[in-house]
């Protein structure tokens, strides 16, 4: 079977899929790709199921070599350049490589996370139902940990069929406030506290990683202390500890926690939020649960409909001029990032 050798990669480079569900009652959080939309699109470009395990990069990319066989890859997510033997690959396009070829993922220019999907997937056994790395538990990923120089990743296929694929008219990320559903503990805050949360602009602090994003900005007033008896958490929950500044709990979060959660980011906006790097401005808008469910359903439909936008690569004009004119160079994050960073 084909193999990819890692020559070099950032310390936070990990294997992630759509997450590990069913074990939260045992204290095992879901982990999984921070940007599930990019995971789905990258997998689409190489003919995989949307939740197939891929390599996730955080900020720093990596250098690789095809050690054996023939592989097909695609990079989607934050703004970073995939290059093959020094030549950049057009965004939203798969590329086929042979034994001896080198490729690299450049540093992230805007956004946080990039996903590299590999046709046929990695030949690494799932652990407890998923290939996602759960760092604290030492399960999933590559032998229970992140990827490092010198690792060799076996693939489930030795060769690929058909042509490389490009996605035409990729969806631009939405801009504007991140939508939330208030609760489960919005009643642990004063009315002014909830108003502060919804009316203010927050900045993503340097403390932003797979566990959570600490935001800085106006302090949110609790009604009656900041400790609660622990209860369950979902990804995207926004807890407010004693400091009054919110923390958004992300894929590597704990399963239970003891701070009141003022609101929860809706599923349709979670990938967009995950791509906000330190320094980004973010504001929140409350929607109803019904609106949130309508949003995630139409979001899922739009992602599924991208299948109709696949074309054989090379049959469409993907010149850099055209991409520049669409403001699409480097993936779909840049336009929305510009919008949110410009909102300061």
């Amino acid at each position: 079977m084909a193999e990819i050798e890692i020559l070099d990669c950032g310390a936070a480079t990990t294997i992630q899929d759509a997450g590990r569900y069913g074990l939260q009652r045992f204290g095992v959080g879901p982990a999984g790709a921070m940007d599930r939309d990019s995971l789905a699109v990258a997998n689409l470009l190489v003919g995989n199921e949307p939740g197939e395990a891929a390599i996730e990069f955080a900020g720093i990319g990596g250098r690789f070599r095809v050690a054996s066989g023939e592989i097909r890859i695609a990079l989607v997510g934050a703004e970073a350049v995939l290059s093959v033997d020094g030549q950049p690959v057009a965004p939203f396009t798969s590329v086929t490589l042979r034994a001896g070829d080198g490729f690299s993922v450049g540093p992230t220019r805007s956004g946080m996370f990039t996903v590299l999907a590999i046709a046929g997937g990695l030949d690494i056994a799932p652990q407890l139902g998923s290939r996602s790395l759960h760092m604290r538990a030492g399960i999933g990923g590559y032998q229970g940990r992140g990827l490092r120089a010198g690792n060799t990743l076996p693939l489930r296929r030795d060769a690929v069929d058909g042509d490389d694929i490009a996605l035409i008219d990729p969806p631009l990320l939405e801009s504007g406030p991140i939508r939330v559903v208030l609760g489960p503990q919005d009643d642990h805050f004063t009315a002014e506290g909830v108003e502060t949360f919804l009316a203010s602009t927050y900045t993503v602090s340097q403390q932003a990683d797979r566990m959570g994003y600490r935001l800085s900005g106006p302090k949110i007033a609790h009604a009656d202390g900041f400790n609660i008896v622990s209860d369950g958490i979902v990804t995207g929950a926004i807890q407010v500890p004693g400091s009054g500044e919110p923390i958004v709990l992300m894929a590597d979060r704990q399963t239970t926690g003891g701070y009141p959660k003022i609101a929860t980011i809706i599923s349709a906006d979670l990938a967009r939020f995950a791509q906000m790097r330190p320094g980004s401005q973010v504001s929140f808008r409350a929607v109803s649960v019904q609106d949130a469910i309508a949003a995630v359903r139409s979001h899922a439909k739009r992602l599924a409909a991208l299948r109709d936008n696949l074309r054989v690569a090379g049959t469409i004009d993907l010149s850099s001029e055209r991409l520049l004119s669409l403001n699409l160079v480097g993936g779909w994050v840049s336009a929305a990032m510009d919008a949110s960073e410009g909102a300061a």
Partner: protein
Amino acid sequence: MSLPSPRFLACGDTAVTVEFGREISPELNALALGLDAALRDASVPGIVETVPTYRSLLIQFDPLTTTPEEIEAPIRALLATLESRTGARRRWKVPVVYGGEYGIDLEDVAARHAISVNELIKRHSEAVYTVAMLGFLPGFCYLAGLDPSIATPRRTDPRAVTPAGSIAIGGIQANIASLEAPSGWHLLGRTPMRPFMPSRERVFLIDAGDEVVFEPLPAERWDALDKAAAAGEWVAQEVSGG
């Protein structure tokens, strides 16, 4: 049992929390565990998983196939006939080496309550605990049922690292730490049992709602049992329900 009317709290578009109350209490926990068990038997379509806690049950659902409204009706139907969890529970006998390097706070806690170390071990190990919930880390057990006479406020200065298997108390809670972790709890002892061991055929030993009793173990036996546990033996005994 007469039910306080539980609250349904939205956790975005992927979960609801059924909140029975806001305190740590055996009654609220029994309701959360009771609903958890009832839901598992009922297998309501669209429910992905549940997370029982001291006082609530988080119910995660798939928003592409169901809605909170759709699952609320069957949940309310189960609540109407809910009894706090009874019947055959699993009970675990968990070996613990108390004191010394295994439980560095044992003497301090005994002194604080003006009792002997042996009396503290007796009070801690003779209680029958209920596993109220797992959380924080994989396999990390929060236990209800600590003898109130040895309840001890948490340390003001949490330790950055405490060993895997630590048996500790904090306030009126007790725990079994599954992995090395920061902790502000008082360390009374240590068990060689691994509540979570990914390489073992049975990855998790203890579930919420199980019962736990502790069996004091002489320090000389630590090495042998720890070795056996590392090789995949449970070390803890699963005994019949109480």
